C-alpha cells in the first residue's frame, strides 16, 4: 500500500500544478486589483504605477504565476550590494517607467515556502489561512462525524425496512434536504432557534468578551450546533440515499441469500455481509465530501459568522486578493488530492477484490 500511496502522490503533482495554473489564469482574467486598492483621493497615476509595479500585477499572467511559484529574487536582483537592482530577466528593471530601477525582488515563491502577502490585509497569506483553519476544521470534523455515520445508518435502516414508513419518510426528507438551498436552510435555523426561541447563540464562534481567545471547543458547543447541522444535513441526505440504494442491491444478491440459507441471522447477514459491501459507493463519495468540508463552507460560515477558511476565501475573491486566493486554492487542491487518495485507500479496505499492487 505504501508504494501505491507514493505512486498516487507522484501522480498528483501534475494535477496540483494544473489546478494552480488554471486558478491563476482565471483569477488574472478577473482584472487588475490596483484600482480598488488605491481608490482614494490624491492618488496620482505615478503612485498607482509604483504600487502596481511593487505588486507585480501589470506583468503578463504567466510571469505573475512564475513569480508566485518560484519567487522573484532571481528575476530582478542586486549584484553590487548597493540595494538597487541592476539585473533582471523576464521582467523589466524599471517596471513602472519612472526611469528608476525597481527594488530587487524579495519573494521566494511557494516552492520555497513564501505564499506572498495579502494585498488588502498586508499580512502573510499563509498566516491568514492558518488563522482561519481551526474554525473550519472544528466545523468540518464535527459535520463529518455527524453526517457520515448518520447518513449510512439511515440508509441501512431504510433499506432493511424497504417500503415501510421509515423508508418513505427518510426518502422524502433526503430529497427535501438535498433540494433546499443551504443559505435558506441556514437562515431559517438561525431565525427559529436563535432569534425566535433564543435557544442558541445568533452566530459567532464563541461568546464576545475581552478575553484573548475563544475557550476550548467543549465549552462552546452551543455555537457549533446550527452550523454543523447545516453542513452535515446534505451529507446525511446524500449518504442515506446512496447507502439505501446500495443496500437494496446487495441484500438481493445471491451471496446474501446464501448466507441467510446457511442459517445466519438477519442482523448478522446485514451487518457482516451486506453493509460492508454496500459501503463501496460511499467510499467514492467520501473523497469529495472531505474536500468540501475542509475547504470551508462560504454560505454557512458567513451566515453563522464563523471565521473559517470559506469566509476569508470569499472576501479574498471579491477583493481580488490574489495571494490569499491562491493560498486557499493550494490548500483546497491538497485537500482534494488527499480526499481522493483516502477514497481509494478505503476502497481497498472495504472491497477485498481491490489490491493496491
Amino acid at each position, binding site marked *: 500500500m505504501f508504494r501505491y500511496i507514493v505512486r498516487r502522490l507522484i501522480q498528483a503533482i501534475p494535477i496540483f500544478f494544473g489546478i494552480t495554473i488554471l486558478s491563476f489564469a482565471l483569477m488574472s482574467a478577473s*482584472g*487588475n*486589483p490596483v*484600482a*480598488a486598492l*488605491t*481608490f*482614494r*483621493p*490624491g*492618488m*496620482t*497615476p505615478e*503612485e*498607482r504605477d509604483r*504600487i502596481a509595479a511593487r505588486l507585480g500585477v501589470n506583468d503578463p499572467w504567466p510571469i505573475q504565476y512564475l513569480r508566485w511559484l518560484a519567487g522573484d529574487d532571481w528575476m530582478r536582483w542586486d549584484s553590487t550590494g548597493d540595494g538597487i537592482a541592476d539585473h533582471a530577466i523576464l521582467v523589466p528593471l524599471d517596471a513602472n517607467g519612472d526611469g528608476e530601477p525597481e527594488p530587487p525582488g524579495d519573494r521566494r515563491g511557494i516552492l520555497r515556502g513564501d505564499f506572498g*502577502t495579502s494585498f*488588502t*490585509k*498586508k*499580512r502573510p497569506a499563509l498566516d*491568514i489561512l492558518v*488563522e*482561519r483553519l481551526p*474554525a473550519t476544521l472544528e466545523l468540518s470534523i464535527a459535520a463529518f462525524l455527524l453526517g457520515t455515520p448518520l447518513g449510512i445508518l439511515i440508509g441501512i435502516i431504510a433499506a432493511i425496512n424497504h417500503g415501510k414508513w421509515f423508508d418513505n419518510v427518510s426518502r422524502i426528507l433526503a430529497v427535501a434536504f438535498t433540494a433546499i438551498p443551504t443559505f435558506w436552510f441556514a*437562515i431559517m435555523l*438561525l431565525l427559529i432557534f*436563535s*432569534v425566535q426561541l*433564543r435557544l442558541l*447563540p*445568533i*452566530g*459567532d*464562534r464563541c461568546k*464576545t*468578551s*475581552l478575553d*484573548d*481567545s*475563544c475557550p476550548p471547543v467543549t465549552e462552546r458547543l452551543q455555537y457549533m450546533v446550527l452550523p454543523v447541522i447545516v453542513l452535515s444535513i446534505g451529507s446525511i441526505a446524500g449518504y442515506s440515499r446512496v447507502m439505501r440504494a446500495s443496500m437494496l442491491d446487495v441484500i438481493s444478491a445471491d451471496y446474501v441469500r446464501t448466507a441467510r440459507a446457511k442459517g445466519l441471522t438477519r442482523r448478522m447477514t446485514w451487518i457482516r455481509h451486506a453493509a460492508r459491501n454496500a459501503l463501496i459507493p460511499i467510499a467514492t463519495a467520501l473523497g469529495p465530501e472531505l474536500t468540501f468540508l475542509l475547504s470551508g463552507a462560504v454560505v454557512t*460560515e*458567513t*451566515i*453563522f*459568522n464563523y*471565521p*473559517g477558511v470559506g*469566509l*476569508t476565501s470569499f*472576501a479574498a475573491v*471579491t*477583493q*481580488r486578493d490574489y495571494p490569499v486566493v491562491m493560498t486557499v486554492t493550494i490548500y483546497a487542491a491538497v485537500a482534494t488530492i488527499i480526499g481522493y487518495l483516502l477514497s481509494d485507500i478505503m476502497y481497498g479496505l472495504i472491497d477485498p477484490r481491490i489490491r493496491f499492487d
Partner: protein
Amino acid sequence: MKRLGSVVVVLVLLALVVMPVIAQEGDLGPGEGAPIVAGNFGGDISTTNPLLVNDGASADIVNRIYPLFIGNDPESGLPVPGAARSVAADWSFSEDGLVMTVTLRSDWTWSDGTPITSADVKYAYDAVISGEVDSPITSFVEPYIESLETPDPSTVVITFKELDCTAVQVAANLAVVPAHHYSQVFPSFADITAESEENLNPGVTAGPYNFRNFRPGEQVTLVASETYTDTPAGYTVPEGFIYKTVADQLVWVEQFLAGDITYVDSVPEDRQTEIAERGAAGEFQYYTSPAGTWQVLLFNTADPANAQSGRDEDGNVIEQTPHPIFGDVRVRQAFVHAIDHAALNAGAFSGTGIPVGGMMLPQSWAYNEALAPYAFDPEMAMSLLDEAGWVDNDNDPETPRVAQGAATAADGTVLEFALTSFTGNPSVDSSVILMADQLTNVGFKVNLDVIEFGPMVDKLLGQTYDALMVFWGVGVNSPQDMIDLLGSASDQPGAGFGVTSFYNEEFESLMQEARTLPGCDEAARKALYDQAQQIVYDNVPMYFVNTSLVPVAVSGQVPNFEPRKNGIFWNQAAWAIPPQ
C-alpha cells in the same frame, strides 16, 4: 421645628429620587462600565498605524487608541482648539496668514508614560513627506505645507505655501504618533511599511483605550485607558471596546436586538422601517443623522474610448474629445429632467431620500439653499434632446432617439449608453432600474451594467464608463473638496477623482479664490462657493440623486447616549453601561 422637620424629610426624599439620576454617570468609575461591543461589517483591520490607515475598519480602531492633532466640535463639525482627544490646545496665525502656530496641551502622556509633545507631530509629518512611507496623509499635506518646525515641546509652527483658508483643515490631517517608540521600532522611515508587525500589535498608544489584541476574523479588543481624561465623566467608563467582525447584516442586526452588540451605526436598508418602529416603541434608542454622502450619477463628459488627463505635464488644459452623448450639456440636462425623483424616492428609497440640488449637503455651512433639484419635466427633456440634435425620427416614443445634427455624434448614432452601478446595494439596484425605465420614456436607450465593486472602480477611475451610479460626497464642512471631484488637475485616468472630465475655468477660478481669499471671511467665501455650486448645477457633470438620513440604533442600556449633529458617538468613552 416640625415644619423644618417636614422640609428635611421632603429634601431627603427628593434627594433619594434625584440623586440616582445625577449620579448615573458617576456611579461607574474608570473602566467599570460593561464593554462596548460594536459590529464591524468591513472585514479585518489591516493596520493600527495612524500613518498608514486607509480603510474604515482600521480607522475605527486608530480613532480610539491615538490622539488627534486637531479635533472637531461634535456639534458644528468644525476644528476647534482643545477638542476632545486632540493635542492642539490653541493656535494662531501670522498676519499674512501663512504661518500657523499651534500650542499643544501638556497634560497627556503615551501609554508608557512618555509625554506627548511636538516631536510626535514632527515625526509624523517628516515621515509622510519623506517619500519613503506609502501614507494616504501625504497627498493631503504635502501640496500645501511648506515646513513644520517644533521650537519647543509644546509648540508646532506650520508654514503654508500660500495663504490658505482651509489651513486648519489641512493641519488637522497631520497624525500624532509616539516618536520615541516609532524611532526604535522603525529604524528609518522606509521601515514604516504595511507589513510591519507593529501595525497590528501597537506597543505604545494614547486614547480612550489601549490596544489588547486582534483576533483575525473575530474581533479587535481594546481596554480602557487609565490615564485618559477627555470624556464628560473625566475618564473612560467602559471596561473595554470590542470591535467585532460580523459577516452578515442579518446577524449584525439580530445580535444587536438580542443585546450582544451595543449599537448599529448604519441600519441596513431592508430593516430601517422595522428598526425605526421598534425604536419609537422604546425598545432601544433610535437616532437619525444626516448622511455625509449623496447617491450620485456621474456623467462621463469625455470620450471613454480615449480617456485623457485634464492637464498636461506643464499644467495646460487638454481639450478632450467629448463623450458622444454626455459631452453635450443639453443631453445631461435632459437626462435629469426625465427623472421623476418622487417616484424614484418612493420606489428605491422607501421615501427616505432627501433631494439635493448642489454639491454641498444641507448640514454644511457652505450649502447653497437656492439650488432646487431639477424638476421632473419630460417635455422639457424631449425639447432639450431635440435642441441638441437627438431626434425621434420614427415618431415612436418607445424606440430610442438618433443623432441628427448632434454636436458630439455622427448622424444616425443611437441615443444609447451604459448605466454602470455596483451590486449589493438594494437602493442602487432599484434606482438604476427605475431610472432606465424613466429615461426610456424620453428616448434614451439604457443598457444596465451592474457589476462588482472592484470592476466598477476600474471603470470609474479608468474613465471608461458612460454614466455611473455611486455613493460619494465632499466633506460636509470642506467645500474645497469639490475641486477634487471636478477640477481638471484631478482628471487623471487611472488615479484621480476627476472622473467626469468636467472642465470649467470659472469654477476652478472661484474655488481657488475661495481657498485663498485674504482675510478668509466666511460669508465672502460662501458666496464664492455658492457661485461654484451654481456652475456645477447648470452644467450637470453629475446628477445628485439624493442624500439620506443614517439610522443609528443604540442599546437601551446606554443611559447617556447624547448624539450631536456632527458627532453621534462623541461621548462614547463615557457610556455608562451597567456591568452584567
